[in-house]
């Protein structure tokens, strides 16, 4: 999922990241590209029965 600079600037602004966008626009671009690459590497399940782990149950992972 790529995004042009204008759309990315709008997204960053909507997230309240105007200060970083103004000072370091390349940081926003790198963060976006890294995030999407990271998400792209995630193995995803198509089985609707695969539930998420539950964050605050300490015995969840047992």
């Amino acid at each position: 999922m790529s995004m042009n600079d204008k759309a990315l600037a709008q997204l960053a602004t909507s997230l309240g990241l105007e200060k970083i966008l103004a000072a370091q626009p390349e940081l926003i671009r790198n963060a976006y590209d890294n995030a999407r690459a990271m998400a792209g590497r995630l193995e995803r399940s198509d089985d609707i029965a695969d539930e998420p782990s539950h964050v605050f149950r300490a015995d969840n992972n047992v």
Partner: protein
Amino acid sequence: MSEELAFLSLTEAAARIRAGELSPVAYTQTLLDRITAHDGQLDSFLRVLADTALAEAAAAEQKIAAGEKLGPLHGVPFGLKDIVDVAGLPTTAHSQILAQEPPKVADAAVTTRLRDAGGVLLGKTATHEFAIGGPSFDLPWPPARNPWNRDRYPGGSSSGSGAAVAAGFVPMAIGTDTGGSVRNPASCCGIVGMKATYGRVSRRGVAPLSYSLDHVGPMTRTVADNALMLNVLAGYDPEDPGSADVDVPDFTAQLDTGVAGLRLGVIRHFHNRDMIADGEMAAALESALVVLEDQGAEVVEIETEPLATYHACNRVILLSEAYSIHRRWLAERPEDYSASFLERVLPGAFLTGNDYVDSLRLRRKLTAGFNQTIKDLDGVIVISAMDAAFVIDDSDEIAKKYPRQARIPFNLTGNPALALPTGFDDDGMPLAMQIVGKQFDEAMIYRIAAAYEGATNWHQRRPPL
């Protein structure tokens, strides 16, 4: 004499103090003198509490004289990573963001437990900014350095705790571990670091990085010391939503039991297929396996999911949760963060709710799969880092080597994992491995680690300060 005192094990120091053979005041003063003499080269402490530490040591001495009941750490100094709260002191997280914050009103749960056991708080130690952005040179305080070579990285994010313990400034310190941050400095500095099972040690009063991955853990120079410290730290805390209401055994009970008859797994594909480890690091792990086999353990090779699968899952969870924590400051005060922090955490802004939920779905499968794989084993041997500690101010090397590690899987699964030294490379830098256990079976990890440590002498070497 002062060098000998500085490198006393926690177990030995506590025993001598209890027997009236070592004055807590003299011991504390020796460590303070050592910090004064050497920490200017290492920057392991952000704040040294000389006056209050000596006062606490004097009070400890009076308790001994009065014949009062003594805790297991009575009169022994400790360090706290500066993301852990202490009543009356600010918690800076090594960041300009919190540098001007008012003092905390309460101790963190682990601070209370260490104090109740008789520990003497010696100071707050350096960390990566908010336990993730580092090593950084654009923060209010410099980064900690490695006692084995001050041009090298001491590991992180519990950098100061690792450096301080290895340097003989304190026999024990607290670290935290979200993607390996207890085990990384333990590995880089040649000490022992335990990330116990998720829920085993309370996180109350510790600045969060990632709620579902954060662990608090003990850092010491020996395995027995680590087990003793976990005895003090472990326990249910109803005020920590992730705390586990489970029995706490005596983690020192099996230290002398040996490994004869134990069945240990080794995961080699993390370091010879998924990533390719440095030759000396990999060879040290193979040598460690021989040591364990020579004592009667059976070692079998096992396979789990590729390291990249764990890493992708961990990064999405960690950065989603970290961004949630830092969202307001990132919007309002981005200039107060280090460049390294911004680079690492900002991607969290662009992960979606679906990315996060899918990563939690994968986490559940990875956890179930790993626990199924190890169900017939007593423990698992895994490499810690692919490389020994790298040069601290070489940004290219940091970018290349920082992610080359195999600690992250066990933050995801919550399994206990301990890092300990397996030797030194040709440059004199520590090498390390991990021992991973079943959920809440830290005692077995300590048993295996103690057997290995007892047959080697890596823990007896001292850095050349």
